[in-house]
């Protein structure tokens, strides 16, 4: 270990490349704009990352089980529209559980198709992305949804409230992260998710009900989406039908950035939280240095490709390994 070879450096870059790239970004942004590390800005980034973060927690479960969920953005639009609409019809106390039940039913349907019918999760959730969008538009009739009496309801507490000076979305994100992180790392259920994602056949041969585990992961994902929808609706008190559009890719970027393998069987909630924050800070930094917001779509793509490449490179122990 006395001398560093080219291969050692390559391996180190492959393993720690994401953090290095992140550090470089942070230094660059700070030099370009002094406000970047301002406490208000940092809090703002965390706060605006919370909704994405909540969704990423659920998708982490799905990805570790060896599947994908590309329907979360579309499903979040659905939850937001539904809870806003029902708010004025049923009142917030009934609207929230009703919206959760409906979102969980969608998750259960996906879980049934992927888990029990063993359909390819990419196709199923890509299809659901479109189908749920149609469902949302049908529900709303294509119109924006607004809460009529914005002053006379406690509904805004989730999105705008603070406890001990900390915004509620951040608290919810942390609470869910700790709960789900513990469930994943410490319970038999979590252990089975890793087994199913790591080697589904071996899990079956160990008596683990693979279909039920996959099904449950989609329920967890749907629960997180419903929470995100609630936070979104409560923050804006009104919404377009397309509020969650494109989020599926950002969520996936955060999860992969955190180091969960798309092959399944690896990743943790803690790493996903890191991934969410990296993505949030980079997007914020781009805005602060004066780039238009739409640059972030391209940057999200770059981040996904970079993360996937480094993940593969870390496994192979080198950065460059073309097909022979």
């Amino acid at each position: 270990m006395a001398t560093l070879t080219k291969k050692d450096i390559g391996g180190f870059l492959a393993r720690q490349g994401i953090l290095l790239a992140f550090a470089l970004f942070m230094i660059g942004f700070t030099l370009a704009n002094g406000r970047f590390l301002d406490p208000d800005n940092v809090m703002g980034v965390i706060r605006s990352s919370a909704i994405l973060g909540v969704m990423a927690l659920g998708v982490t479960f799905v990805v570790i089980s060896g599947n994908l969920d590309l329907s979360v953005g579309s499903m979040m639009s659905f939850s937001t529209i539904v809870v806003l609409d029902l708010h004025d019809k049923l009142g917030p106390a009934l609207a929230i559980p009703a919206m959760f039940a409906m979102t969980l039913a969608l998750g259960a349907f996906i879980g049934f198709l992927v888990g029990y019918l063993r359909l390819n999760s990419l196709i199923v959730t890509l299809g659901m992305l479109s189908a749920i969008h149609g469902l949302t538009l049908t529900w709303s009739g294509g119109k924006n949804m607004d809460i009529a009496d914005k002053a006379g309801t406690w509904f805004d507490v989730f999105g705008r409230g603070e406890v001990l000076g900390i915004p509620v979305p951040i608290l919810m994100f942390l609470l869910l992260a700790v709960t789900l992180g513990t469930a994943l790392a410490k319970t038999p259920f979590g252990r089975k998710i890793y087994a199913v994602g790591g080697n589904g056949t071996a899990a079956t041969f160990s008596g683990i009900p693979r279909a039920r585990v996959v099904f449950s992961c989609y329920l967890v994902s749907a629960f997180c989406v419903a929470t995100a929808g609630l936070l979104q609706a409560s923050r804006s008190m009104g919404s377009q039908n397309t509020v969650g559009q494109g989020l599926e890719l950002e969520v996936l970027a955060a999860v992969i950035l955190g180091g969960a393998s798309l092959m399944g069987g690896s990743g943790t909630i803690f790493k996903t939280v890191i991934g969410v924050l990296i993505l949030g800070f980079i997007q914020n930094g781009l805005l602060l240095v004066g780039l238009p917001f739409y640059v972030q779509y391209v940057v999200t793509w770059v981040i996904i490709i970079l993360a996937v490449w480094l993940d593969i490179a870390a496994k192979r122990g080198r950065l460059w390994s073309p097909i022979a």
Partner: protein
Amino acid sequence: MTTQTPVLQLEGIVKTFPGVRALDGVSLAILPGEVHALMGENGAGKSTLMKVLGGIHQPDEGRIIVGKEPVAMSGPLDAKAKGIVFIHQELSLAEELSVAENIYLGELPEKRFGLVDWNELYARTNRILEKLKVGFDARTRVGDLSIANQQMVEIARALTVDAKAVIFDEPTASLTDAEKVVLFDVIADLQSHGVGIIYISHRMEEIFRITDRISVLRDGEYRGTLVTAETDEEEVTQLMIGRSLDLSRNAVHHELGEVALEVRNLSCHGLFEDVSFAVRSGEVLGFYGLVGAGRTEIAETLFGLREPSAGTIHLNGEKVRIHSPADAIARGISLVPEDRKAQGLVLGMNCRDNMTLPQVDDLKAGPFVAEGSEIAIFDQYRDKLDIRTPGWKQAVGNLSGGNQQKIVIGKWLAMRPSVLIVDEPTRGIDVGSKSEIHNLIRDLAAHGYAVIVISSEMPEVLHVSDRIVAMYSGRVMQTFTSEEVTEDSLIQAISGLTPGQAHQTDTTQLSEGKDIQ
């Protein structure tokens, strides 16, 4: 005969894979017009040798000589162009295409504008089919043919080139007696045209009926060539399994307990039929047979991975139905599966978590996994099985094959089963770990476990078993006690040769495909 120039020669072929010397200096010479049998146990190196010959693997050392020319094979097409043609056990035909299209795939005759010249194609094909005396036409869809006729299509494909040597790999595995006669006629015809034939089979009867010479491989080494007319089954068997066998024969005996598992007339459509056996606690019951004889499928049925189509399973005298692995585990059945990497382990997971996986629901402290109990279980079986690992945090994928196998065995012993099924307990692991695992199996029986061992290695079944069930084509041919069993009788039984058993005509129905002829 010896003065002829061989059509094909392999000289000193060496091929190693990580950790295994698959072929160790194998030489073989095929004379024109001879049928040359290639024999050896599963894993002796026959398939690797054929892959080297077909250019799928490149040899580390040695050379291939076709006629008088040393050649390098870049792949199966290259081999075919050089006159070396393979008829595979697994057919590689496009079912939706016609016989003619399959035969000339990749070299269809063309007319103007690159269109297929169908008339020419069918005419050429029918000329070949006539030579083979088959009852179907060039236009027939291949999917509509029986397995035997599909094989004829493969053979017809071989005849489109000027074949110097044709390799048959277990060609009769799914043929009826009548179909075999046709196949043997075709082989005789090829022979009369000076083509050299390599005939790979486990079936002694066929070997002695149609071959001229027999070459034997064992553990990747060439063990010798015998002239068929001057040898007998016993000599061939000895060459195949080696001499050291009797020394390692299990001689330990101890008290047997009650019948732990009994299976009556168990069938699973197309995989095995009418299988009955019983195993007592304290007993090791071996299952021996060729790959595909139905042994693994029986194990999978007992473990709830397949639904039986008929028959009953009795555990400790009680009739049970097993619908899932969870059912089987709850009833005290454990299965150490045949492929440890694909079925036995989650390679990216650590040693401890792999070992406790089947019981993770039962190891709880409140809502959480009791990691302390897990570590205690891991430590216990690490010591008991002498598993070499830096610690429980090590990913199983980093361990050697032998240690991985011990993790799988430990995982299932930790369930304290009443019946332990071990499928191919020592596949792909080194000699030292092998004998440790054999001793362990004997030791488990001595401690009152009922153990079923499925193996394709004869020395292994002979060494560990108290009784041996010989299977052939999904049926139990005979059950031997360790006192009465001989290598010869065992080989005969698994080749379908056991006297007094009706086999060929009805067992072939198991695998016979649809036939519109």
